[in-house]
């Protein structure tokens, strides 16, 4: 497809500008020539061509509304339409962040109540909604841990991170000046307790644990893990990317987690927008409240307000108050579902994942054969060994069957990983036809491996040369 620059023609525009109703003057004289630019090489297109361009681009994109999207660890559940309408209400979109608090009482109430709801769902003492994404929340959480030990006057150097962890975990630890040390998984896919005991010293600030972990498995020894960490004065950090596995069934605060970050765009159904905006609230236990980012929200009588007066705060991590409009959608979602609905969402998500696991078990190798939570992880190693067909090939063939592929090659500890997260919003029929497609691909891998390796055939482009893209990077179009 042509680029917007390639359909540009001098003299066209899709947006006109009002004539000035105030006196005009020579800007060059007023501001100074050296401060002004001469060129402005933006596309020039008519409105109809602009709309066709972007509409045609949208047709080359796959979203949840087009089909099943079992992308593991990403919780691609349906994004209720009513929440989009609500978030577009002028009362929510129209306010400047520096408007006086009296004019923003609706927004402040929403933020306040959202924090309270999240405290209830996750068993934490307080939440901040300021971080803009999950990784941002992680960084915020680790900063609070750093501050906590600084305040105690005991500098700790190390953060423990399981080998199955998201890649952002070690990056977040390192960005706060910690050394990260890898913790092994045991044969059941859980924390290797003996290894943890051997690593846990008074130099360890925290363990960053995802529970259930990225294998979709719940940490059965969580109580023991928390005890080992806490006995040495360490803190337990929870990566809440997988909260759709336990919301309403158990609470991180009760399990011993001191900090947890969430992803509203996963668990609370706000759309991912093709890679953002997200929202990454962070919840803390009592010991860490003082370190929360500012500003923090307060309720006095019926009035809500912001305050920055917290001497031990880590400070600010984003401008203004976070991705407010995303929070509106998540708030509406929580109100729609209510306590029972949230719990049912988790139950159906876990039911769906286990159903897929059972149906595909005969055809693909399970990384760990035990009950999973909201996602299940297979390995494509049988297909590699027997037919030379890799997980990438299986993923690409799924595209031809009309599905978005699962997450692949993650977690890193599973060779040829295929990580399937169906979410609760999919029907049995959808799961059945998806499983039939997976089974058909397993069969095709045996009978016609080259066919699988050539997939996809139904897309506007076939497999792309990623090596070329990295070797000779072309990240901005240039006129030739």
């Amino acid at each position, binding site marked *: 497809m042509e680029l*917007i620059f390639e359909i540009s023609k001098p003299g066209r*525009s*899709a*947006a006109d500008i009002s004539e000035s109703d*105030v*006196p005009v*003057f020579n800007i060059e004289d007023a501001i100074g020539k050296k401060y002004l*630019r001469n060129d*402005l*090489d933006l*596309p020039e*297109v008519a409105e109809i061509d*602009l*709309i066709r361009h*972007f509409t045609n681009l949208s047709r*080359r*994109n*796959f979203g949840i*509304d087009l089909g099943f999207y079992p992308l593991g660890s990403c919780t691609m559940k349906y994004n209720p339409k009513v929440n*989009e309408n609500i978030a577009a*209400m002028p*009362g929510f979109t129209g*306010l400047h962040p520096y408007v006086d608090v009296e004019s*923003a009482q609706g927004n402040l109430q929403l933020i306040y109540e959202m924090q309270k709801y999240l*405290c209830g769902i996750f068993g934490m003492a307080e939440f901040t909604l300021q971080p*803009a994404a999950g990784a941002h929340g992680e960084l915020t959480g680790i900063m609070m841990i750093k501050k906590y030990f600084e305040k105690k006057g005991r500098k700790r150097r190390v953060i423990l991170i399981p080998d199955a962890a998201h*890649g952002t975990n*070690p990056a977040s630890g*390192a960005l*706060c000046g910690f050394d990260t040390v890898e913790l092994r998984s045991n044969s059941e896919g859980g924390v290797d307790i003996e290894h943890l005991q051997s690593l846990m010293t008074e130099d360890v600030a925290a363990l960053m644990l995802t529970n259930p972990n990225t294998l979709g498995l719940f*940490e*059965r020894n969580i109580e023991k893990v928390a005890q080992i960490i806490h006995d040495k004065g360490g803190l337990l950090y929870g990566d809440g990317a997988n909260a759709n596995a336990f919301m309403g*069934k158990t*609470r991180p605060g*009760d*399990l011993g987690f001191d900090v947890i970050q969430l992803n509203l765009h996963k668990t609370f159904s706000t759309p991912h*927008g*093709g*890679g*953002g*905006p997200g929202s990454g609230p962070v919840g803390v236990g009592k010991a860490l409240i003082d370190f929360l980012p500012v500003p923090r929200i307060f309720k006095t009588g019926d009035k809500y307000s912001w305050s920055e007066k917290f001497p031990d705060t880590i400070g600010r991590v*984003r*401008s203004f*108050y976070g991705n*407010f409009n995303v929070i509106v959608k998540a*708030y509406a979602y929580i109100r729609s579902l209510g306590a029972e609905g949230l719990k*049912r969402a988790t139950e159906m998500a876990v*039911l769906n994942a286990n159903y897929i696991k059972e149906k595909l078990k005969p055809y693909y190798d399970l990384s760990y054969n035990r009950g999973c939570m909201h996602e299940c992880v297979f390995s494509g190693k049988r297909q590699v060994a027997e037919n030379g067909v890799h997980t990438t090939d299986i993923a*690409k063939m799924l*595209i031809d069957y009309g599905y*978005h592929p699962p*997450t692949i090659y993650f977690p890193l500890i599973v060779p040829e990983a295929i990580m399937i997260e169906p979410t609760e*919003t999919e029907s049995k029929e959808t799961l059945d036809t998806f499983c039939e497609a997976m089974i058909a691909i397993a069969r095709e891998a045996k009978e016609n491996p080259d066919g699988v390796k050539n997939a996809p055939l139904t897309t506007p482009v*076939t*497999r*792309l*040369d990623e090596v070329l893209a990295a070797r000779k990077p072309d*990240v*901005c*179009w240039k006129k030739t």
Partner: protein
Amino acid sequence: MDYCPHTPDDIKQMQAAIGVAGIDELFADIPKKFRLKQIPDIPSALSEQETVSVMSDLARKNKLPQLTLTGAGAYHHFIPAVVGHIVGRAEFYTAYTPYQAEISQGILQAIYEYQTMIAHLTGTEIANASMYDGASAMIEAAVLCAKMSGKTKIIVARSVHPEYRQVLQTYCWANGYTVVELAYMPSGQIDLNALQNELDDQVAAVLVQSPNFFGVIEDIAPVVDDVHKKGALLVAGFTDGTSLGILQPAGAAGADFVVGEGQSFGNPLNYGGPYLGIFAAREKFMRRIPGRLVGATKDKKGRRGFVLTLQTREQHIRREKATSNICSNEALCALAASVYLAALGKNLRKLAELNIYKTQYLKNKLLQLAGWQEVFPAPVYNEIVLRCPDSKKVNEKLKNEGIIGGYELQKDYPELENSLLFCATEMVSKTGIDRVVEIIK
């Protein structure tokens, strides 16, 4: 409403297929003592109609102003209808990050086009797919400069947005860097002598903004010279993105990184977010910059296509060696920016001119009032600092008439007593300004 399609019979069949007698068996790994019976503090479920009603009530509790004269990092601009229609397409907004390129060509190409427009607007060679907001774009650039050079001192102009400086303090504390703030001159521009004094061989980066927080346009070229002479890098921000429609971009003056808030391009005020951080750089930093990057390549048949590229920079692969942990961008906000910029095209300059005219008109009218003065004589774009006899009283009067007045600078700059930072975009009419002056009188 819970959006789960299963019927009781579906559930029964699925349980049988799994081999469990009930749902709770699926949660057997959770130790009994930690199993939750009921989530506390959550109201009962609502029907769709009830949800809309509850949310409308909340939205109505907010008081929408008739007129906004505050900018200060978030700008009220007109958004052409095309923007909402495109970002409202579910193919875009219900997609995840484009990991599977073959079915994500739409957003990938749109981001490639965005990167191209941003690089051009900022006068640089490359731009990433966007960051969280203007603050994160600036801070990520500063941290990168420190990581690349191994130096630990960051100089930031006091005329940079106060909240950006606060975020900078947080990140620099976490990384063990020192932050030094740089004074501004009576003109409102940064003090080059003070800069010379602070520049030593430990400085990784110098952070400025143009237009700066006071609306004042900086002369970037001499700053670039000084900074480069001392082996440091210049990170140049901007306030309102529409200023790039008319002002010489910092990249053209030689800045190493050009960063800023992109909200002005087609994104509503949204009480502060979601916005998008614009991050542009010189080509030589391509393999080091944080965030996502889309590159053009070819498919097996030689057709042009787009992929996420240079991901070895990212935390997925480098893990603890990554220079940033940023994963997501603000793709949908960047898409809005793309559509906005493509819709305006060369009219972006006309829009910028209109902002300048309106701001000068506002200034001239307010300066006719007794006791009002212009604080900084240097040229401005669409924001201006004016000192008045009683700034609190002015804003109070305006608020009572449904108008958001100027931003009170004193809380961030104690020396700027009774000084208000006003912003007049194209959304402010002559009639509106005349009314403002009448109210203040």
